[in-house]
């Protein structure tokens, strides 16, 4: 318990002192996770909507596979992306391995199934309510999908925040494809792993507390958004 108190003090000192190294790590973590969620949403939202309203062969299979991929182990994704981006691999010529770009790619691969599966569920529920009216108004299926995505925007926003939380907490994939290079690809989670393995537990715990606080803030934002939207938009 003494070590916990020590860690808390260390954490507060780091934050209060605006330690530049810490700021660099936090900023990179945010950049990587935000970009990943953005790309994952750009791909996952249309895919989820298509699965919700579309009627095409293989739809059931894709849905099941997608739901399964929601729980993809991050180390597996990390390994696959590593093999893809390595110089010896198919995309090696771009020299992306051990760069933040590789981390964004890995996290995007990890989060897209989650975005698509959550979107599918949300849009499917909305479709059930709106289908007849939209058809009556003459909406084509693609048009209806877009309308539903916009209509469900607040629920989707919360889903996107969930994706961000998953990305920000992830360590296996970014460690492997980023290489945890000091000043280049070192993010909060990989720093925590590093400090723990160095035996510097107070510092690791301090960083952990900051990360948890960040995730909590994101969830609070989600909750507040939901409440505000309900009040103003119904």
């Amino acid at each position: 318990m003494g070590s916990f108190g020590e860690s808390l003090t260390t954490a507060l000192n780091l934050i209060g002192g605006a330690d530049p190294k810490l700021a660099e790590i936090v900023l990179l973590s945010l950049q990587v996770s935000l970009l990943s969620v953005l790309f994952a949403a750009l791909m996952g939202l249309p895919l989820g909507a298509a699965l919700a309203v579309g009627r095409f062969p293989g739809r059931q299979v894709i849905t099941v596979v997608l739901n399964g991929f929601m729980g993809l182990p991050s180390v597996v994704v990390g390994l696959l992306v590593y093999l893809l981006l390595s110089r010896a691999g198919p995309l090696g010529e771009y020299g992306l391995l051990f760069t933040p770009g590789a981390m964004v790619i890995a996290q995007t691969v990890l989060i897209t199934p989650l975005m698509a599966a959550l979107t599918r569920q949300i849009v499917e529920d909305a479709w059930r309510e709106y289908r007849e009216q939209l058809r009556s108004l003459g909406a084509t299926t693609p048009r209806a999908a877009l309308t539903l995505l916009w209509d469900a925007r607040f629920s989707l926003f919360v889903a996107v925040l969930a994706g961000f939380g998953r990305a920000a907490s992830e360590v296996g994939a970014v460690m492997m494809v980023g290489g945890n290079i000091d000043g280049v690809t070192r993010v909060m989670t990989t720093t925590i792993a590093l400090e723990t393995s160095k035996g510097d537990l107070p510092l690791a715990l301090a960083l952990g507390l900051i990360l948890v606080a960040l995730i909590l803030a994101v969830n609070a934002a989600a909750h507040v958004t939901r409440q505000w939207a309900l009040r103003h938009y119904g």
Partner: protein
Amino acid sequence: MNLKRRILLAACAALWLGAFPVQARDKFIVVASTTSTEQSGLFGHILPLFEQKTGIKVRVVALGTGQALDSARRGDADVVFVHDKAAEEKFVAEGFGVKRQDVMYNDFILVGPKDDPARVAGGRDITGALKKIEAANATSGAAAPRAPFVSRGDKSGTHAAELRLWKLAGIDIEKAKGPWYKDTGSGMGPALNTAASTDAYVLADRGTWLSFKNRASLAIVVEGDTRLFNQYGVILVNPAKHPHVKKELGQQFIDWIVSAEGQKAIADYRIGGEQLFFPNATK
């Protein structure tokens, strides 16, 4: 909607530009090295000096020795800097490296619990100590091994050294190991963590030990045996195999690290006043 969309696009552009291309514009090389070397803090000390002199940023990817060499084989690094001479020479012989050069050595130490159940403390004979540890466990029961031993078991340079020493001590560790021998498959730090929490003996590199903060009741029990010396080598990844390798910049790094200036930088690195690495590049 148009304004919102424009703001969103601008934010994305800012995110991307803010994160990445600045780094891409620097001159840099990727050096594959080991976790123990990085965790010792050596790179934090010498690399800024190199960058100041040449303007080249060094990106160290810290892996186990086996993985570092493997990365280099795949062409994912420009230079390797590890401590397993046999594996390094094999690497060059296979054609993946240009030339292997000695850079420095550090030493391993045997670390153990203060109450020293195997009675090895203060000695300078590593093989003798290992024999005593094995003997102490041979007589104790499986449930409560008298002298547990933690092994890294991860094909690292440290792990390779440990296995060599068991062999030198005349012990076939594959046969002799029992519940007292904990094969953790982990890096140096985690292995030390495990040893600290289970009061076990462990072979460690001095650098990681000196920066290790979670010692519990562990202390150095055996050091100074010349067989504990750990030789580091540096190799340029062969551009013939991987044309994209930054051979000029990489060679600059190698030239610097074996030069008088680089060697002095290595010698100057201390933890708590103690020198960790001893430069020995041949002229």
